[in-house]
């Protein structure tokens, strides 16, 4: 017994480890977490898949064995006790019961009245007359309680066996003896060798399958350790359509896949729609909606050059495909497309999350193989009362995205920013603006030299800004201006940039000599900030999604679990067993009615608690009432 208990404790601890250390992650994650040495050690003792490790399964087997032994050992006694009335007890042994009562009485006792009372109290009764004229009444009730012991223990065993049936014991054995091997290379399913395939006859599995809309397949993948196995299916599944329905808040409401199942044994295909909580079972294989992803959405993209207006170009891409720009020596890799993005645009407050429209996740890789990851939204989204095009960039997956925020114009388009940005880089325009500014400011003192030097410094400043935004200016200030004058210089520079860019803006938008309204002033500020951030964006193009043709893929899970029935059956037995163990109170009663007068009563139970004491008290009262 203590062996079984220590096994249970061990099982509990192992289970806890499995919940703390995330199971079945890709192996690289563990290497990063533990380092090479500990990674290897933990792998050896099976910590990345605790619940399927040899030692865990061994503990389970031992538990099943020891519980089975318990059942075998105790069942005969229990059954005997269940079936037999102990009628051989003598007066002396009744008196030795802890709960007994001797009623001295001269009158003859009304046996039938006692029997009637006991029957009413749901006792099963046996009567035995002894040679000396005494009558022994043996009564018992609640003795199904004893069966509860057997039922609970059988329940546990059956559940465990059912679980083992659905586990991967057979594969484990095949792996140890070299009949099967986990495939770790990224191969197309048809190229995976026989040694890493599980046949149609495999009795239990849990496999995954990703189908793009319109495509079909008859194999699924079982992920295992650092690789996978291919599970062949006895039928072909085609995904006709995949749908996500949304609540008005933008939260997903349902995921549904329209499937066509083609079985060579059937003359007609089966059409079936599955969704979360509504799987479909065919030939013992249950097909579940488990997740979804992009299935190769086509993208029409305009790459707008940030530095050279002439360099903008249109490309066509597809999720999971790449496009190489030979001239720039960079490659665009398209990773994911999302049609809906439900975002909390204001932190915390009661602002409802809202759908901000499509986004594309992609990587831009240079010739050296280094890549940055980008997340770009198609439409401008409202932030702080203004509207911005948002594009995030990060250099490693561990980082948070850093966002480039480009202000949208009054029409909600990016054109005005692009126009303004090109103008900021236009040297002729800068010179014209500088001249204009110099003329205006110098009209009072008419000093040509001052005027010219001012004009030159405006040009120099604006060209510096054009080359690198505010940070370039700051760099310049740091380098060339003594500390005590820095603050003043910066203020002057910022003012000049402000005025010059407003002039440039007015020129490009044909608003000469007009006072700019507040929203335009804010637009220019946001645009200058965006322009400056552009230099840290890491790629010389802004990614503008013109249009797309969405194609989704549905993630299906396929399971065959012959143990399920046994697990449920075991559960039923377990529940019935627990009920009878807890809520049936076993009572055994002996009443010896002596021929000479007088009664001896004894009550016993395998559990003596408050209820038993109460029952005993009540019984004494009733019996006394009947006798007197």
């Amino acid at each position: 017994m203590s062996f079984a208990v220590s096994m249970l404790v061990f099982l509990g601890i192992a289970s806890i480890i499995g919940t703390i250390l995330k199971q079945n992650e890709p192996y690289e994650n563990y290497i990063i977490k533990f380092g090479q040495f500990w990674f290897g050690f933990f792998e050896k003792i099976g910590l990345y898949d605790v619940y399927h490790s040899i030692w865990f399964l061994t503990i389970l087997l031992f538990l099943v064995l020891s519980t089975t032994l318990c059942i075998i050992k105790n069942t005969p006694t229990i059954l005997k006790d269940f079936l037999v009335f102990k009628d051989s007890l003598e007066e002396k042994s009744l008196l030795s019961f802890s709960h007994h009562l001797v009623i001295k009485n001269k009158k003859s006792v009304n046996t039938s009245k006692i029997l009637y009372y006991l029957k009413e109290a749901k006792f099963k009764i046996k009567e035995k007359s002894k040679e000396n004229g005494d009558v022994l009444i043996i009564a018992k009730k609640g003795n199904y309680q004893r069966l509860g012991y057997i039922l609970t223990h059988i329940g546990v065993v059956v559940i465990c066996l059912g679980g083992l049936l659905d586990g991967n014991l057979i594969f484990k054995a095949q792996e140890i003896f070299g009949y099967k091997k986990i495939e770790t290379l990224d191969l197309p399913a048809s190229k995976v060798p026989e040694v890493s395939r599980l046949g149609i006859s495999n009795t239990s599995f849990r496999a995954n399958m990703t189908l793009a809309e319109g495509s079909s397949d008859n194999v699924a993948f079982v992920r295992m350790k650092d690789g996978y196995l291919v599970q062949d299916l006895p039928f072909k599944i085609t995904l006709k359509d995949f749908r996500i329905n949304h609540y008005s808040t933008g939260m997903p409401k349902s995921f549904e896949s329209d499937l066509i199942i083609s079985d060579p044994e059937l003359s007609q295909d089966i059409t079936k729609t599955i969704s979360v909580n509504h799987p479909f079972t065919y030939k013992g294989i249950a097909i579940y909606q488990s997740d979804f992803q992009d299935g190769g959405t086509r993208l029409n993209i305009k790459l707008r050059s940030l530095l050279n207006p002439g360099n903008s170009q249109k490309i066509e891409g597809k999720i999971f495909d790449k496009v190489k720009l030979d001239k720039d020596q960079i490659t665009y890799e398209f990773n994911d497309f999302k049609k809906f993005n439900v975002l909390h645009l204001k932190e915390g407050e009661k602002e409802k999350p809202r759908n901000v429209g499509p986004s594309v996740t992609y990587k831009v890789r240079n010739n050296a193989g280094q890549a940055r990851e980008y997340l770009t939204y198609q439409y401008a989204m409202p932030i702080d009362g203004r509207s911005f095009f948002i594009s995030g960039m990060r250099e490693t997956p561990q980082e948070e995205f850093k966002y480039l925020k480009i202000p949208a114009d009054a029409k909600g388009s990016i054109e005005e920013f692009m126009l303004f940005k090109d103008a900021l880089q236009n040297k002729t325009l800068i010179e014209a603006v500088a001249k204009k500014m110099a003329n205006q400011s110098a009209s009072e003192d008419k000093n040509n030299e001052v005027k010219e030097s001012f004009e030159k410094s405006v040009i120099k400043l604006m060209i510096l800004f054009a080359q690198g935004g505010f940070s370039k200016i700051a760099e310049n200030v740091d380098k060339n201006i003594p500390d005590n004058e820095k603050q003043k210089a910066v203020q002057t520079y910022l003012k000049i940039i402000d005025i010059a860019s407003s002039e440039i803006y007015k020129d490009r938008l044909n608003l000469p000599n007009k006072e700019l309204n507040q929203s335009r002033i804010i637009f220019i500020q946001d645009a200058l900030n965006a322009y400056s951030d552009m230099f840290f964006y890491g790629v010389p193009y802004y990614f503008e999604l013109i249009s797309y043709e969405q194609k989704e893929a549905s993630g299906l899970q396929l399971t065959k679990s012959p143990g399920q029935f046994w697990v449920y059956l075991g559960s039923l037995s377990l529940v019935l067993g627990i009920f009878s163990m807890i809520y049936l109170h076993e009572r055994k009663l002996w009443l010896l009615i002596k021929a000479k007068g007088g009664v001896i009563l004894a009550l016993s139970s395998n559990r003596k608690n408050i209820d038993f004491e109460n029952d005993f008290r009540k019984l004494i009262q009733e019996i006394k009432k009947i006798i007197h």
Partner: protein
Amino acid sequence: MFNKLFKSSKATFQTFNVLYLVLLLGGALYALKKFHNYMDIYEEVILFGSVGFFSWLGWSWNHFKKIMILVFVTSLCAIQLYQGALNNNEQVFLLKYLISSQSAIMWMNVFFVLSLLLYWLGLLKENNLIDDIASSFTSVAVLFGFIGLLVRWYESYLIGLDVGHIPISNLYEVFILFCLITSLLYLFYEEKFNTKKLGAFVLIVINAAVGFILWYTFDRHADGVQPLVPALQSYWMKIHVPANFIGYGSFSLAAMVSVAYLISSKKILTSYLPKSAVLDDLIYKSIAIGFIFFTIATILGAIWAAEAWGGYWSWDPKETWALIVWLNYAAWLHYRIVKGLRGSILAWWALIGLVVTTFAFLGVNMFLSGLHSYGQL
């Protein structure tokens, strides 16, 4: 004379029972007639199953029946007052200050806090009258809590037909459920064992939950109705969650009675508290009922998981911790029933059991990730 009176009161009792059944059955039939287009066969079974369950509870426990009748009548009034418009909860006086879901739940909180204070006052002053008031305040809190949940259920459909669902789908809602179930279990034993001295202990754990509800409401603003994620859209939720919380409630009750037991065994408050044999029996009974419901809930959870996630057991952290909780109490019962263990070891064990249960209930959601990530903090 006395006998006759007794008989007639028995007859009233029977009439009352029949009335209760008629009320429940009538409600269910009305719901079936009006909403059967929105229900599948399982939900209809659950509807009439709950009529059976609630009648049985009411028949075997008169006090519960009274609470339920009041709950139904008041909730129906609230629904009438709404007249199908959600913003009436700000317009109509009775709704705004008493029986809209949020107000009713606030009243529940208030009465639970008051009950705790009064129970302690009653315990220390040895005043039975104060105990009685504390006990009725707990009943009132339960009344308000149930009204709050039922009205919330109705309100959720006013937000949107596709949003509406039974209010046991996030942490805020299940904490209310926890308070209600734990109090009901306690009130039952209070009557059965004829002692009102344990409220001072049991109400502590309930007030901890009240504290959580308040924090969740005022700090996190997480008291709103959220639509259901696809995985939760199943009739199983209506059985799995309540069954689990009967388990959690009973285990908490057992742990709090264990505290009383341990204090009493240290000769503190001993004369004020029930005899240790009574406490011991209460701990056992509470764990036993919790264990049964927890077992059933876990099994139902497995059957639901087989339907939603593709397997009855995935070693998901929540599942695994449910197993650990189960093993813990299975061992507890085993030692008590089969080995005949008694005394303060079991009380300590029941107390540790609460720590394990709390981790399974909350800790898993806070520290571990997995499939059960509905109730994130």
